């Protein structure tokens, strides 16, 4: 029955309070038998879209029709026909897997006689048979999502709504979840899968691309990617200075977008108006780059096309890096951040075990791993927020156990989800943080003014932080972390869920700072972010299972059937390898 229209949005607008609408005059259809990706960064309107479909919200203007019923007048007829998995885990954590299933079987009116067979099928499908007695709160992120999926599928609804099902899920479970949902569409089910990950969008049968409440694209992701075909290249053969090369490339007038991908630099060229077929040529690069550098055409990704629609990235100059002084070289050659056998136990649970690495000056080092693997624990031990059970950490030459205060004075910390004071204005936040870092009165004024000018706050400097646009929030968070000119910068998931333009701008600043000699430690579960790192430590179940540059990790898992592995492939292969060797030990 593929092709049936399940959802129809007719010029739908939804507003929350003042400001631009959350959804702005959206018209779109969702059809049966395929996965429709609802794609966009945080705040694009994805959750609002899904809630409008469930009938739990009604539009301010326009109409939403689901399974042939209008949501505003006939929501009750819609509820039985949809399976809905909200963004937050919507199940009862203090109920067991089986009890949650029982509850939803009853709420969805599954006849008692059919239950054993349905439960059996769902548990087998989600691979949760062994965990029926376990409390849902004790399941891993991936298992929780699978249980949520099982509860949503109780009556095999014709329409399945999944709001960011892959958030907080490790890449392996994410692939499993995808495969399961894919299987369902084979049976005719229509699936809406919302995501901020653009690599997921690429795999969808159809995509609704949202940005700031507007629908940018509706259709087959491949046709979107096609528009960037022939315009995407990698600058290869660089062993050195890839950040400087990126900045140089972005300065080219016909380059609209560029990112670092391991040791290569990926660039997107502007669409040629004259229709000329000649491939672009590499501009002159800094001498240290060497003579091996060349442009190699690569197939476009969804993100390249997205950036193309948005009209290109923010350019490669960091006003910030241009204005701050280079970090003075302290004791020669000594690593700026060092972890030696860091171990943290909470009761009989070991959150981090024997973590060792050292980061030389001017390097970006990434801690990559699924949620709950021990990244944050390691991170917190290194910025002095958590005392290690065993081992030692040093920042800028100061032992965190003995001289935590001095160490903290030399590091800047940017917490996940911008821990700023929402009710204070941008300027007041800057004032406050400069005070916290003990800047003198005059220097404080200078630095605050410098930040406001550098980040172009203008009139927004008196706006409450919570009302700032996302990009400015990100700038403010970064400004607060670096005002005291730290040697080391700690970034906790700095750009997850952020739109690609804001993410590029952020990394342009970070790259600029690194060129000035700042050392960066970043945690992430986000593969794109990991590509910016010089080296990565892969953290899994509290242990470092691999360390190396993104390309080294990719090469380690190269196989004949996987000639060009992505970082995600590498991640999955290395985690599976680790699981396997653990089984052998046991």
């Amino acid at each position, binding site marked *: 029955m593929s092709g049936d229209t399940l959802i129809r949005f007719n010029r739908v607008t939804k507003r929350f309070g003042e400001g631009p609408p959350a959804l702005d005059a959206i018209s779109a259809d969702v059809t049966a038998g395929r996965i429709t990706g609802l794609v966009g960064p945080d705040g694009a309107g994805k959750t609002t879209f899904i809630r409008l479909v469930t009938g739990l919200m009604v539009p301010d203007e326009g109409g939403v029709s689901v*399974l042939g019923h209008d949501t505003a007048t006939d929501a009750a007829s819609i509820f*039985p*026909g949809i399976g809905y998995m909200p963004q*937050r*885990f919507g199940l009862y954590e*203090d109920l067991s897997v089986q009890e949650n299933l029982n509850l939803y079987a009853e709420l969805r009116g599954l006849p008692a006689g059919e239950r054993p067979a349905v439960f059996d099928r769902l548990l087998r499908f989600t691979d949760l048979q062994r965990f029926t007695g376990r409390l849902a709160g004790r399941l891993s992120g991936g298992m929780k999502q699978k249980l949520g999926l099982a*509860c949503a599928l109780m009556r095999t609804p014709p329409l399945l709504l999944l709001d960011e099902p892959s958030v907080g899920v490790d890449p392996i479970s994410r692939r499993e979840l995808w495969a399961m949902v894919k299987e369902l569409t084979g049976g005719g089910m229509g699936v809406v899968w919302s995501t901020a990950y653009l690599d997921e969008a690429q795999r969808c049968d159809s995509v609704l691309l949202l940005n700031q409440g507007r629908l940018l694209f509706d259709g087959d992701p491949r046709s979107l990617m096609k528009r960037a075909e022939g315009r995407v290249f990698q600058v290869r053969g660089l062993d050195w200075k890839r950040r400087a090369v990126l900045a140089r490339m972005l300065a080219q007038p016909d380059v609209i977008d560029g990112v670092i991908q391991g040791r290569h630099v990926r660039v997107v060229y502007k669409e040629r108006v004259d229709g000329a077929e000649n491939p672009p040529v590499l501009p002159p690069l800094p001498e240290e780059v060497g003579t091996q550098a060349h442009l190699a055409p690569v197939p476009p990704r969804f993100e390249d096309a997205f950036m193309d629609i948005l009209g290109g990235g923010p350019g490669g100059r960091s006003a910030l890096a241009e204005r701050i002084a280079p970090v003075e070289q302290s004791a020669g050659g000594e690593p700026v951040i060092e972890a030696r056998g860091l171990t943290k136990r909470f009761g009989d649970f070991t959150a981090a075990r024997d973590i060792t690495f050292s980061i030389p000056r001017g390097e970006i080092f990434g801690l990559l791993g699924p949620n709950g693997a021990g990244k944050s624990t390691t991170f917190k031990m290194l910025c002095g927020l958590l005392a290690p059970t065993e081992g030692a950490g040093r920042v800028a030459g100061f032992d965190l156990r003995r001289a935590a205060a001095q160490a903290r004075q030399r590091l800047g910390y940017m917490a996940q989800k911008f821990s700023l004071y929402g009710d204070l204005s941008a300027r007041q936040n800057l004032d406050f943080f400069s005070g916290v870092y003990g800047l003198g009165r005059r220097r404080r004024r200078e630095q605050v003014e410098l930040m406001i000018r550098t980040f172009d706050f203008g009139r927004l400097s008196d706006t409450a932080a919570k009302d700032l646009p996302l990009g400015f929030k990100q700038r403010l968070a970064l400004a607060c972390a670096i005002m005291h000119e730290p040697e080391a910068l700690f970034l906790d998931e700095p750009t997850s869920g952020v739109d690609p333009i804001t993410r590029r701008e952020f990394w342009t600043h970070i790259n600029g700072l690194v060129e000035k000699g700042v050392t960066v430690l970043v945690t992430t579960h986000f593969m794109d972010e990991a590509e910016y790192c010089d080296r990565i430590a892969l953290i899994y179940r509290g242990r470092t299972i691999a360390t190396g540059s993104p390309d080294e990790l990719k090469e380690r898992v190269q196989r004949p059937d996987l000639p060009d592995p992505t970082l995600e492939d590498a991640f999955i292969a290395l985690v599976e390898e680790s699981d396997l060797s653990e089984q052998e030990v046991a």
Partner: protein
Amino acid sequence: MTDLVAKHEAGDLSQVRTSAGGRIRALIVKEGLQIVRDPSSIMIAFVLPVILLFLFGYGVSLDANRVKVGLVMQDTSPVARSLASAFIHSPFFDARVDHALAPFEADLVASRIRGIVVIPPDFAERYQAGDDTAPIQVIADGSQPNTASFVQNYAQGVWSTWLRQQAVQMGRSAEGGGLVLEARFWFNPELTSRNFLVPGSVAIIMTMIGTLLTALVIAREWERGTMEAMMATPVSVGELLVGKIVPYFLLGLAAMALCTGVAVLLFGVPFRGSMLALLAISAAFLCPALGQGLLISAVAKNQFVASQIALFTGFLPAMLLSGFIFEIGSMPTVIRWITVIVPARYFVSSLQTVFLAGDIWSLLLPSIAVMLAIGAGFFLLAARNTRKRID
């Protein structure tokens, strides 16, 4: 499952095969499991009431027993010593004796004692001169007027009792055979404040469970997203509300039984009414309490706001305006009018009736009717304000 939409349209999926009763039962079972597994519900329903009862039973007492006073003996004659021993042996005073006033003055300033009784140097002289009004001086700490008046009245009492005893000993008849006032208190003959505080605190506890706990657990469902997931199923608002009311109604009654047990067995509070009457008034009170909790949860979707509203509109009025501690009769008229809509007011007075007086249905029934009416009002508002909507 090749033709899911057609199946849906044919009504196969929308047909409600299990009854609303089945869904409600499933919701109640779920809520029950959550209550049992969540230590905080158990805390609020069972541990907190016991702590509160102990607090009101032992800690808070509106009786002024054994008030600390200083006794200054400026006269050491046998008569003066006889009066002093009357003070020392009085159950109302905890008296220390000295010959000078100065040390007690310091103690009074530092609140180590509540008052000073001075037996002046010429006490025996004046007493023996037949001057029955031989003066003793009483100094009380006016910063605590309540206690000060206790000190004054008790001192007066000790003095007159002593005078009568002296008269009997001397063979003199008691003052001219005038009227002797003998006070008798009904229902609570010893005037033990515990006897009315403990039943009153049951009302506070039930307010906590009915209003605070209910508002909190629903706000928690909003916070955790479980409410959103449930809203997108065929369950109706009415079923959701009933699924919350029944478990917390039963929990409230269980807590009430626990409180009654502790009150009667541990504190020896008299229980003169019947279990039936107690059950009736408790059940009636749980209606407005739960209704208020549901209404709060319809407006407040996070636990912090819900708890604030519950404290200000439920807990504090139950504490201050119910006649539990402060007598309604002695409140200003405006406040007295406000207490009319505080359901705890009717519950406190009904509880005190059942515990201390017995099943006086002529008093209980009107209270039950008012509580049910307020409860119905709350339920109506709650049902109207709870919608299957997020915005």
